[in-house]
């Protein structure tokens, strides 16, 4: 037995090194990979929480209406009833959180209305569209139309 051990020393030594290596690999792997990896699939479930933590820019229709009831009513009576507030006024979650310090700017009417209502052959036929230059002769849309209820 002693002789066998003596003779196979050259095999035992690398075997020990190999085992130690495997052991270290397992220790490292355990330390690096989160315990619940694979809970839902081959990924880190913590990533879901990370993504959910991202901040919101658009407060959403319901939030705007909580304070701006009069505007909401004017809009609900007209053709823009289903156009969201932030669709024209821009992202205002910060304003909703702190109405005093973050004051929204009025949108630039010229460019704003055109994006939707400039005549384009690709737009659906039912949608109201005009060649703005011919339609108003350069006058801004809100000279005649109220943006919240654009009916004349």
């Amino acid at each position, binding site marked *: 037995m002693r002789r066998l051990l003596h003779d196979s020393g050259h095999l035992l030594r690398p075997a020990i090194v190999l085992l130690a290596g495997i052991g270290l690999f397992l220790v490292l792997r355990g330390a690096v990979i989160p315990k619940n990896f694979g809970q839902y699939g081959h990924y880190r479930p913590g*990533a879901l929480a990370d993504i*959910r933590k991202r901040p*919101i820019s*658009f407060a959403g229709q319901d939030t705007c209406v909580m304070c701006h009831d009069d505007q909401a009513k004017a809009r609900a009576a007209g053709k823009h009833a289903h156009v969201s507030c932030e*669709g024209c006024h821009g992202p205002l979650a910060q304003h909703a959180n702190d109405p005093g310090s973050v004051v929204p700017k009025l949108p630039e009417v010229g460019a704003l209305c055109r994006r939707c209502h400039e005549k384009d052959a690709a737009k659906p036929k039912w949608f109201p569209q005009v060649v703005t230059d011919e339609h108003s002769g350069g006058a801004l849309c809100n000279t005649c139309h109220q943006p919240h209820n654009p009916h004349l």
Partner: protein
Amino acid sequence: MDITRRDLFKIGTKILVLGSVGASLEQITGAAPPSETYRMADHWWGMIIDIDKCIGCGNCVRACSKENNVPQGYFRTWVERYEVEERKQPQVESPNGGMDSFPPSTRTDVKSFFVPKLCNQCADSPCTQVCPVGATFVSPDGVVLIDEKYCLGCRYCVQACPYGCRYLHPVKDTVDKCTLCYHRITQGLTTACCENCPTGARQLVDFKNPQDPVHEFLRNNKVEVLKPYMATQAKVYYNHLDGSVR
């Protein structure tokens, strides 16, 4: 200085031990999602897009860009304008992703329409299958997401996506894409693009919610997904989709 085999082993062992201690101290988190009223098992998200309602205003593109800090020149959602002439290849354009709307087209000799595009949130997604590190995945509520901490930026997924919905973020060097506003929809809000679509051409839907209007919509309309032959089980359904759209 001669380095013997023994020295080499010593140095190697030190590096390994110190490395493992360092890694365990770094606290790589595996925290479960915040436990609120939102239950992932109760939802299966998707979207319906009505081509006949899209006016190409670019509200969705601008909203997405602001909501998600999308770098300039990259798009998580974009709008294409198709001009299809009889028996010819369709002409497709999307200047700046359609963000600032389109230069007016007056061509009446062609069939033309707008097609909003975004990640199709495939249930059997090619992009998640090729990720070598488990950085992109389909969440239990059916949204294809990216783990920015795991993503290596190898771009296999960018190549795998048949819809061209992924890009390498120029600053983060990780792949980025539409998350279906996962941070919003898990709080009961709709996506930024759907919130801001003035005609209701885009609608976020939850297939697991029996009250969701999507069920009636799918029953009453002849819908199609993009590239159905790719068998990706896409969950973005298009109404009135022309056959020329790719």
